């Protein structure tokens, strides 16, 4: 497997993703600068977290105006290769229309930076196939606009299609408003596209892939990819 991290002006988790894939997981990884004309042919593209274009107008929306990059990303996805959008990367995937729904400001209006628990909602994806059924993962979140919203028809599509990858939960896997940090519809923390080769998630697996960072649960996602 080969991977690339797509870097925008204002991305700030790009080095973390690069380091974890390359050094911790041993996946040969390269950077793609958002203006690079030659998009490399890789198996996995990561859209990292951060504040691309300063979150101007709406988080993630400016990136969609980069026509050549978005077309290359579209080709990559259409060919069935993999994409993970983490945090701001998830916001970009939503704004660019690769995943359904939109992000609202957190219910509390505060930027939230803390460890939370996620319940794995499907193991039927290249990103979660190594997880146990309903496995609980301890991952950090760090966002101001992670309050996932979609209309009821879209939610039904996601539910019926088994496309909700992760929900916020208690450590025991219980769902409830008290375990939902940002107000997301249906406690959604991560979703898949219809072909199941694109994952968007707000929590940061790249910040929890080594014991020294207090949780290694993020490795489950990388290990799933490695099969």
């Amino acid at each position, binding site marked *: 497997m080969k991977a690339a991290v797509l870097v925008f002006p204002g991305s700030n988790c790009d080095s973390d993703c690069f380091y974890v894939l390359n050094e911790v997981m041993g996946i040969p990884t390269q950077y793609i600068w958002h203006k690079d004309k030659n998009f490399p042919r890789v198996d996995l593209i990561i859209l990292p977290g951060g504040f691309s274009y300063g979150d101007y*107008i709406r988080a993630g*929306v400016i990136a969609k105006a980069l026509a050549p990059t978005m077309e290359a990303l579209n080709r990559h996805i259409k060919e069935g290769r993999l994409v993970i959008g983490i945090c701001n990367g998830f916001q970009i995937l939503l704004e660019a229309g690769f995943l359904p729904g939109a992000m*609202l400001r957190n219910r*509390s209006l505060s930027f939230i930076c803390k460890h939370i628990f996620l319940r794995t909602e499907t193991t039927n994806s290249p990103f979660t196939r190594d997880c146990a059924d309903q496995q609980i993962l301890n991952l950090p979140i760090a966002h101001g606009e992670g309050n996932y919203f979609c*209309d009821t028809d879209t939610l039904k599509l996601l539910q019926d299609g088994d496309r909700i990858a992760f929900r916020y939960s208690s450590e025991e896997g219980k769902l409830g408003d008290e375990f939902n940090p940002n107000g997301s519809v249906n406690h959604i923390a991560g979703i898949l596209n219809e072909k199941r080769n694109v994952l968007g998630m707000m929590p940061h697996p790249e910040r929890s892939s080594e014991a020294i960072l207090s949780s290694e649960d993020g490795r489950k996602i990388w290990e799933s990819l490695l099969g």
Partner: protein
Amino acid sequence: MYKVIVNVTLKDSILDPQGTTGLHALNALGFQDVKGMRVGKYFILMVNSANETYAKERAEEMCQKLLANPIIEKYSVDKVNFVGIGTNNLGGTP
């Protein structure tokens, strides 16, 4: 050149905690007469167009493609004023 004003707010069906918090603050400051508040974004666009209708059409397209997200927001193109030929002085440094 037309100066076009665009307002973007969250749809009525979407909770606006910023509006609610602001409303409570206004009430606490003695503005008991304020009963509702929504917070949005205000855009000033200088659109090079031969006529008002086209300037408005272009602004609507801009809303659909970038300025508003139809899943959560609504927009209105509120004012279109002719401001002379070739002027785009909006202040600030380009």
